[in-house]
Structures are given as C-alpha cells and as structure tokens.
C-alpha cells in the first residue's frame, strides 16, 4: 500500500471510530515537486480523496491561483455545512504535506516531509468525482467565481 493510501485509510479509520466526532473541516497544504497539469487532474484526484473523508461530494467549490504559477487553493463546501480548504504548490524543490482534520470533538494532524515518501500520482483513469472537481477547479480559476458542482456521489 502506498503512503497516500495508508494516510487516507488512517484518516478514514479515525473518522469512522468517531475519535474526533463529526468531521467538519479539513485544512490541507500540499507542496509537491510534481508539475501541475493544465487539466488539474492531480488536483481533482486529491480533492476527491478529501471528499471521501466526508463521505459526500461537495456541492460548491471556489479556487484561486494560477496553474501557470503552480499555486492553487480550493474551497470545498459540502451540503452538510462541512468545508475543506486545500492549498497546493507544484514544481517545488522539496515536497511536504500538512493536514488538519478537524472534528467537532477533536482533531487529527499530519505533517510530513515527503523526501522519503512517494508523491501522489494521477490515477490512470480519473474517477467521475475527480473529473468533475478538476473541471470545476479549472472553470473557477478561469472565471474567478465559485462553481456549483454537478451532482456526483463519492463511490
């Protein structure tokens, strides 16, 4: 199992065990050596993974940044009122991840330098939710406005 799969599994387990209560907010900062792609595929895949932690797809998204400067921040808003704020920097010399997974009763934190761990990869086939989120990020970056997400489910 890759580092990213293990990380996501541990977070899901922590949520399922109700150690932090109900998940209400995720703050993520990912600094990666990978180059950003124009189609925001990796961004979409990462956002879809975060959505799985909430067990629901976001209904609205807003993004700032520019893919040509390799900096993107995304606000995900879920129908339950929960939110996530994920910032990514691509093409960086050193990779790093910082996650605050905040529940109404507690929080889980994860911070690692990734120089000895694998970076996330874009899956060969992007799941539907990831595709939908990638498209919404691209459109939000282009228009400068928030974007309603077309109905998707987390599988």
């Amino acid at each position, binding site marked *: 199992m890759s580092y990213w799969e293990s990380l996501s599994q541990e977070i899901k387990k922590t949520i399922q065990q109700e150690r932090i209560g109900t998940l209400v907010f995720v*703050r993520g900062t990912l*600094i990666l050596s990978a180059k950003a792609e124009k189609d925001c595929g990796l961004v979409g895949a990462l956002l879809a993974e975060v959505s799985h932690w909430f067990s629901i797809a976001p209904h609205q998204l807003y993004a*700032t*940044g520019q893919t040509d400067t390799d900096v993107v921040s995304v606000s995900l808003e879920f129908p339950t*009122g929960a939110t996530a704020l994920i910032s990514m*920097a691509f093409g960086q010399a*050193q990779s790093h991840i910082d996650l605050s997974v*905040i529940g109404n*009763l507690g929080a889980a934190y994860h911070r690692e330098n990734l120089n000895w761990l694998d970076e996330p990869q874009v899956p060969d086939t992007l799941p539907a939710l990831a595709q939908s989120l990638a498209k919404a990020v691209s459109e939000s970056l282009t228009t400068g*406005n928030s974007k309603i997400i077309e109905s998707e489910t987390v599988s």
Partner: protein
Amino acid sequence: MMTKSLGVLLVSGALTHQENYSLKFRDDPRCRLIGVTDEANVDAERTQLNQAWAEKLDIPYLPNLGDALHRADVDIVSICAEPERRGRIAVECANAEKHIYLDKPVTPFLTVADSVVEAVQQNGVRSQMFSFIYQPWVQRAKQIVASGELGDLLAVHADCLFAKGPNGTAQLGTIRQSPYPPKISNFVDAKAELYAMGIYSLGVACWLIGHSVQTVYGQTANYFFEAHQHHNVEDFGYLMLTFSNGATATITGGRIGWTGHASGGNNQVYLIGTKKSLLIDAYRPRLEVYDRAPAWASPEVNPRDPMGFWSSTQAEVNIQPKRIYTPFMADFRGDEQHFVDCIVEDRESEMNAQQAATLTEILLAGYQSASQGHVVSLPLSR
C-alpha cells in the same frame, strides 16, 4: 535618550484584553499607568469591572473618559472597550492628541475605521492595533521573505485556530446562513471568531505579502459551540484572498475547543515562493516534554466566561496550561513594547490605524462574500 516616562491611560478593565495589555505597559520601565477609565455612560456591570481592575492594579478609577483625556500626564491610551464602542473611543482619544493602542480588531464598522485613520493622521499621533506581527516567529517569516531566499512570494497560508472552549455542543448538519453585516459583539459566551481570531492570521498574511488585497472569498460556520449558534455568530471561518501583485493567500480563524490541539491551537504560516517554500509554526522550535504529571483535562466551565476569553476568569477555575509543547520564547517582546518603541523612536507602527482599518475592510468583505456566496472585490463601497 528619553527621560520622561509615558503615562498610560486604560480604557475598560476586567474581562477585556486589558487584563493582558495593562500588565505589559506596567512592566515596561518607560511607562507608568495613570488610571482606568471609560465612557461616562457605561452600564453598572462595566463600571464595576473597570473599578475592579483599577483596584487590582492599585491605580485610580477615573469615571469619565472625556475628563481623563484632559490630563497632561496621559500620553498613551490603551483601548479595550467592547468592539462596538472601540472605534469611536479611538477617535476621541486621537483627537485629544493621545497615542492610541488598540485591541483587535479596531472596529466592525467601515466608516468608523476610516474615521480612526483620519483622526490619527490629522492629530499626528502614533497608533497600533494588537496583532501577531511582532511575535518572533512572524518576524522571522518576514526576514526570510525579505532576504529573497524563497524567491518571489506566490502564496501565504496562515492559520489561527484557538483550542479553547467546551466544544461538541453545536448542532451540525446544515449550511450556516452568514448574516451581513455580521453580528460583532462580545457576548459572555461567544464572539464572532473569524473577526476575533481571523484578524491574527489575516494580519500576518497581508503584512508578509505587503500588497493590497483585490478580491475576497469567505466562509463562516458553526462547528463547535451551541452558544455561538444561539447568538448567530460563527465559531469558525476562512478567507481566500487575491493580491494586486498576483499573490494569493488563505487564512483560517476560529475557536475549535479545548480538545482540538496538543497546545494552544493551530498557529502557523506557510510561505510558498518561486524558489522555495517554508512552514513557520508558532510552537516551533520547541521541546516536547512527557512526564508523570496527570494528563491535561478540560477545565471546569466558568459561567462568567465559558470560552476562556479572559485571564482572570480562567484563573478562577484554576485552568492548567497544556505543557507538552515548550516553545523557545527567549527573544519574545510584547506587542505593547513595540508600540512604545515606535513612540520613543518617532516612527510608525507596521500595524497602525491605517493597516488596522484595511484589515477591517477585508474582514467585512469576507463576511459579505460568506453571506452572498460570491467573490467580493475591494474597496468596499462607503
């Protein structure tokens, strides 16, 4: 070289941040406390709290601010009145040609913020709002940005999430309808936390980037406390900002509850540069110490201050510090000391009334965005 000590007048006393600021001024050898005062028409409870603080500091209680401002021995006024009154008091003090030290944020009202700036400029007095920018970790961040080591600064991500308050009581499951204008008031058991906490991370991000904000996107929520929900003020929020130089920032501000963090809360800033990126954490460098002491437990709720806003009420329930993290604080100087430096050295604070007013405008734009669900451009219409 300064020979005259600076007289400091305190506006509002107990159960305000004057409990912290006044002690720092008292301990600064360049200052001496003159008295505690307030507007003449404050209610009986506020009067009693002001008198109690004057008594504790063994200084006079001066019941009429207007009269106190006529005193020639007052050089600085430290203003900790409630948010709704703070701005107009700041104007009055600046017009009396006193330097003003302001609790944060300066005011929830845009036109009042403008009036404070105008009064400060017209009267040529110094001003400073309490913030994090003079804390050693933020100063270090600024030095690194200025050195060019990171290249051009592309983005800043700053967090200020206080781990205080009895969390777990909010009703979850719905999207908060954020009112605009926001409800900004100090209730016994709640404050608008994007306003009260977000000002810190916002101040850090704007100061580090050093360019004007162009657009604001905001979200507010009620995740932790029934009391905040009851008063219709958020316990959590975040902003996404774009700047005139193309940089971006995200900031969080909120109160996540006693059980949400190993220490005081998430208090950090990421600097994303074209050459390099860096995390600076308020609790690093640090020692982590594990010992035989009993595990930290949430304090008993003090009905006079359930959220742990004030030092005196936390002491009443004998709150114990979380002791696992021991950050290095050797070079820590209080924010108040930096303000005194500015007066003594006749220079402007980098968190003066103008900057404080700018932060008020950004926060209000964030609330407007949260209410309307879209991006808000600055400046806001007056």
